[in-house]
């Protein structure tokens, strides 16, 4: 199985080298695409020096924009599975196997989510943020028909079917990259399940703890959810995307070039 790890990175130059090094040591078999989401620091340079493929966006699009680029790349280059991994080091590369296992086997799913609250690890949230996560989890679980306790997890693996869906529809709005994209997958009828994973404290950056921010988060989460559930579903993924043709041309050119060498 050809697996692509898509890593959206925005101003992550500080910790990125260590994250990529660990990923390569643990999983030398997977390809990595770092999407530099319009960073102002040396993120792209650091990633290139680590020997992974880098796509640089000319300006910041948000996680959703970076991820849709990643899924289009994965689709166009014929990967069987794409895994989203954060660049801040909170996702343990050793857990990739757990996620990928969920895509295969008798009760295989199209999208596997690495969930923080499902037993493993010690991640806890409090106050309005916790209520927001509870609300999101309750509504999405009901829609999906299976228990999904961590809807905002950015650690997920998908197969080609969902890859094609994400390549066409991946919201860039606030919480859209996690919650709305998940609701879209569920409403389309793809099979979703979660596996418990332990997450580590972030290598860089600190989570916000202000109660006002948490309350705003709760309100916005409710709005995003209401929109995600009532919005019309976008058209199902079409045949090959324009990027496919472009990439076919590119690989053709590569072959010609390789032949010339």
């Amino acid at each position, binding site marked *: 199985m050809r697996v692509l790890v898509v890593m959206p990175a925005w101003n992550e130059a500080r910790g990125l080298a260590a994250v990529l090094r660990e990923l390569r040591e643990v999983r030398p078999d997977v390809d990595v695409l770092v999407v530099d989401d319009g960073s102002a620091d040396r993120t792209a340079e650091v990633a290139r020096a680590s020997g992974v493929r880098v796509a640089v966006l*000319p300006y910041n699009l948000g996680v959703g924009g970076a991820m849709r680029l990643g899924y289009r790349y994965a689709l166009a280059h014929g990967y069987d599975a794409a895994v989203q991994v954060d660049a801040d080091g909170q996702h343990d590369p050793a857990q990739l196997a757990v996620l990928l296992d969920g895509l295969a086997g008798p009760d295989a799913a199209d999208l596997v989510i690495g969930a923080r609250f499902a037993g493993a690890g010690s991640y806890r949230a409090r106050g309005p943020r916790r209520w927001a996560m509870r609300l999101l989890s309750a509504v999405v679980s009901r829609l999906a028909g299976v228990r999904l306790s961590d809807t905002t997890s950015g650690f997920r693996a998908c197969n080609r079917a969902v890859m094609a869906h994400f390549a066409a529809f991946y919201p860039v709005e606030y919480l859209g990259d996690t919650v709305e994209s998940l609701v879209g997958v569920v409403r389309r009828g793809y099979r979703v399940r979660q596996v418990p994973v332990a997450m580590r404290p972030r290598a860089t950056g600190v989570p916000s703890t202000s109660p006002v921010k948490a309350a705003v988060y709760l309100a916005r989460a409710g709005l995003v959810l209401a*929109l995600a559930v009532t919005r019309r579903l976008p058209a199902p993924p079409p045949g090959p995307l324009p990027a496919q043709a472009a990439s076919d041309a590119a690989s053709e050119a590569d072959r*010609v070039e390789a032949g010339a*060498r």
Partner: protein
Amino acid sequence: MSLSILTSSIGIVLLTVIVELLRRHRLREKYAVLWMAIGAVVVPLGFCPRALDRVAGLVGVASGVSLVLFGGFVLLLLVCLHLSWEASRLEEKTRTLAEEVALLRVAVGEAAERRAARQEAAR
């Protein structure tokens, strides 16, 4: 009576259009909040256009209708200002994109030249 029929039906049409645009992904979340709020104010006002008369008296405006006109005008000015700001941002972004495309064209051209040179050398 006929006034409230006119205003309430316009209010409902407005709200329907807003909700439908949202559902079709034609409006993004950040605009959705603004337009939903406007809809939520406009529709009740449409059903009883005289409701603002007392508030108007409090702030020294002769009638509720004038207050609505004034408020609506200020709001539209703000919306225009916001759209101008968005347009400026978008122009800046398309400019960056155009530069990016030009740089890519140079890179692709150079790669093609190198390839041609290599093929020439191999022959």
